[in-house]
């Protein structure tokens, strides 16, 4: 039985099974969108927290760090309540759509990106902050300069967020509903197909997921080493 499962798995991958590709594409679309949105919010927010002092800064830092480990299913539940028919955003009609999944994953990854960015920019500020302040750069200009300078390190934060988004199952399952051909992602499909006993499909999706994570990390590693060689 195991041999047959493995053979069918590789057959699905070799023939570029349409169902596998569609599910993988939706997963990528949702996770990449969430990471882009999370980066757009989390990187500037983390950078500003890193280089400014304000009352409650330590509290904000603690919350960011704590939210790095937000339970995905809880985020899914909160977003479900927001988007459900009787919720404050119910009129938008987004529940059980890819947009709802992107919304939920954005909430999941933004604190992670912000917390990692804060740490990296704080380190960069230790090295360059005095120089930048002596040049009379504003807070915004300093934050932007440090983010650009730490761009190759920040790739790690973005990658960590992508890894979290693409591999989580709780939030997308609750707000997406795992609807075939509409909101079914790799993780929710693997979970469902395993329960149904369609192991070749589950296994082929698992292999695609693993390959994606490995390729993305390898690319990031190459980028970092290129940057270190080029810019020192």
């Amino acid at each position, binding site marked *: 039985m195991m041999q047959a499962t493995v053979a069918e798995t590789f057959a699905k991958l070799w023939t570029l099974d349409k169902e596998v590709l569609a599910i993988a594409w939706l997963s990528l679309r949702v996770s990449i969108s969430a990471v882009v949105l999370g980066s757009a919010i989390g990187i500037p927010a983390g950078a500003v927290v890193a280089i400014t002092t304000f009352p409650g800064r330590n509290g904000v830092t603690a919350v960011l760090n704590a939210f790095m480990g937000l339970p995905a299913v809880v985020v899914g539940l909160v977003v479900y309540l927001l988007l459900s028919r009787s919720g404050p955003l119910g009129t938008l009609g987004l529940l059980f759509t890819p947009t709802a999944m992107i919304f939920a994953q954005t909430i999941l990854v933004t604190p992670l990106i912000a917390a990692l960015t804060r740490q990296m920019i704080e380190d960069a500020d230790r090295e360059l902050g*005095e*120089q*930048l302040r*002596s*040049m*009379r750069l504003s807070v915004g200009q300093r934050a932007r300069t440090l983010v650009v300078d730490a761009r190759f390190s920040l790739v790690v934060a973005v990658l960590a967020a992508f890894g979290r988004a693409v591999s989580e199952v709780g939030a997308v399952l609750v707000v997406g509903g795992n609807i075939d051909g509409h909101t079914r992602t790799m993780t929710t499909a693997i979970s469902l197909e395993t329960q149904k006993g369609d192991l070749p499909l589950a296994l082929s999706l698992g292999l695609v997921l693993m390959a994606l994570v490995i390729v993305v990390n390898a690319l990031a590693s190459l980028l970092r080493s290129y*940057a270190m060689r080029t810019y020192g």
Partner: protein
Amino acid sequence: MTAVLPITVRDLSFRPGGRIVLDRLDATITSAGITALIGPNGAGKSVTLRIIDGLLQPDDGTIRFGNRLPQDVRRALVFQRPGLLRASIARNVALALVPWKLSRQAIAERVDQALVAVGLAHRADEAARRLSGGEQQRLALARAWVTEPELLLLDEPTASLDPGATEEIERLIVRMARNGTKVVLVSHNLGQVARLAEDIIVISRGQAVEHGPARRILSAPRSAEAQAYIKGELPWIAFSETRTACSQP
């Protein structure tokens, strides 16, 4: 361009966390030439420089630049180890112009002029962090130069450089001073101070204990602190005198 003079420092105190770093430091700088701040480690020289720059705020005291407000004076501070971006040499120099909101072309022209001045124009596109220590410090001076500072503050700019690189940096400092920039230099290198400075302020335990012409202070310091510091920092004088004495018949 000596409109920043006199630089009047009055009752400057700095006590971070209750620790006294500057203790009612008084000084009036009137010379248009290079002024050196000397003194032992922890005396408060670098902190004084940072307060003059506006990088640190004193707990008490005032600084005046002639009749002008501090924020109206174009100041540039060069550190012992310049903070460099992971970017090209030109981009690092252009960084100093970010607050100026100039056009791209105006920035490129100014950056080019500054890099020509320090002899790095032909390497503008190279990675700044790949430069040697001396070249990095020349870049730091270009970054100051590009803002056409009226007051240039230098915090041990040659502390980790070899004699050749030191000479190049000193040549640039002198050139900027001759162009009308008022230069205030912190240095432990008394040979350098003798070569560059017109006047010296000796700082000890957060106070200016002596201020006068460089030649007089280096040869005949009056305060006990200045005497001890100069004697301690110039062992080669004692060595030279000993050797001279030994060679006499």
